[in-house]
């Protein structure tokens, strides 16, 4: 029989409070005040944004606000996911020293119960890439890790029943994300267990199966428990200063003006643009570049102003420009993209 872990099903469905609890558990486990824990949870309609993501680029904030979909930034990395009570997440909180596997192996190890749960319903799920489970090329489970001093958190999201229409409206991932994949939209890329079996499923029953498999596959013994007073207090504190604030969840739109220049055979070409997240605006092409038809640049300025950074190279490639100037402009757009990734 393996070591005892707390099985925590605290019933917190508010997404902001939920993530405040997650961080409180990581912090207190590191300090030796919380035991190893498997937390299973369902939350109300929400989009969870990865800690490193730009909320404004990944989420249709206006749609979410209009439809009472909460937006919350997680403490861990990974991509934005839409979530509602039809699905569930788990987080395993433990001391890193408990498992000898490296981080990549841990992703596979902790996906085991999800694979087995799918199998219980006659669905074959396969591990793909670094941290996903796919069924027929569609994602059904995703996971993330966070190392916090001596504590380690392995989390996963398992799609059981999901409203795909709302999901595809709420998430707005950059087109680049699908560039190397057969799928062209969120809806093409994800599935749910209920969709695979062709009927609605009781999410709590699926959660129970997952927990059973976790106990045997992770070689632990789960003992139901509750949040301690210290965990609740710290979670409320983190909710107040972090997870309940727009500053944390939405961040600020990155707006700034950049001017970059590049030498070409026709002279120096400069590009000035306002950058607002992935959108470029107020584009000005200048420098001392000598072109027989300056109108080409004027037209390009108009076409590039207001377009998405990802679409801009295609517009430039289609323009009637000398090769050297075209290449220089493409390089400037590339630089603009690189600069946009650097924090302001």
């Amino acid at each position, binding site marked *: 029989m393996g070591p005892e872990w707390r099985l925590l099903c605290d019933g917190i469905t508010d997404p902001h409070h939920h993530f405040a609890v997650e961080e409180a558990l990581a*912090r207190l486990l590191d300090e030796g005040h919380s035991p190893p824990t498997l937390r299973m949870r369902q939350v109300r309609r929400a989009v969870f944004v990865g800690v490193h993501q730009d909320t404004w680029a990944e989420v249709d904030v206006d749609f979410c606000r209009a439809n009472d979909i909460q937006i919350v930034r997680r403490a861990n990395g990974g991509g934005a996911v839409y979530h509602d009570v039809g699905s569930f997440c788990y987080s395993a909180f433990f001391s890193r020293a408990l498992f000898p596997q490296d981080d990549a192996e841990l992703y596979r190890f902790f996906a085991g119960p999800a694979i087995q749960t799918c199998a219980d319903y006659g669905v074959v799920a396969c591990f793909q890439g670094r941290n996903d489970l796919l069924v027929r090329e569609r994602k059904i489970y995703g996971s993330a890790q966070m190392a916090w001093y001596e504590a380690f958190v392995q989390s996963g999201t398992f799609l059981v029943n999901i409203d795909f229409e709302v999901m595809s409206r709420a998430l707005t991932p950059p087109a680049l994300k699908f560039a190397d994949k057969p799928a062209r939209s969120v809806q093409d890329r994800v599935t749910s267990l209920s969709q695979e079996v062709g009927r609605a499923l009781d999410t709590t029953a699926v959660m129970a199966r997952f927990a059973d498999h976790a106990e045997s596959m992770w070689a632990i013994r789960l003992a139901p428990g509750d949040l301690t007073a210290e965990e609740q207090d710290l979670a409320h504190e983190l909710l107040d200063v972090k997870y309940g604030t727009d500053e944390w969840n939405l*961040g600020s739109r990155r707006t700034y003006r950049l001017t970059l220049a590049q030498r070409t055979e026709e002279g120096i070409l400069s590009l000035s643009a306002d950058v607002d997240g992935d959108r470029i605006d107020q584009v000005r092409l200048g420098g001392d570049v000598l072109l027989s038809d300056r109108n080409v640049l004027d037209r390009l300025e108009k076409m590039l102003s207001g377009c998405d950074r990802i679409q801009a190279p295609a517009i430039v490639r289609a323009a009637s420009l000398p090769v050297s100037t075209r290449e220089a402009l493409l390089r400037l757009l590339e630089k603009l993209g690189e600069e946009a990734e650097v924090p302001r």
Partner: protein
Amino acid sequence: MTQPVKLEAFIGWPPTAKCREMLAILEEVVQRHPEVRLAVFKRGVHEYDEKPSPPMAKLVHKGSAVPVCFLDGQLLAMLRVPTREEVEAKVTERLGAAG
């Protein structure tokens, strides 16, 4: 003339007691060595006054570990608070090499 040396710390936000302990150690070392600068980056906070070094930028934008400390882009400590002696020794060594 000695070259400026840069310490970078990546901590949780809001900082934990251990994060504060690490910052106190780093600040103390910086106070003893005017050639050393300290830049602090907080997990999940992507707006900074100063550009991070390449390894710190990678951590800030993709990393999953807290805390981490770099000295001129070289790893000094990860997932633990370095000791005062350890930081002092590394900084002194680096200042010697840079000078």
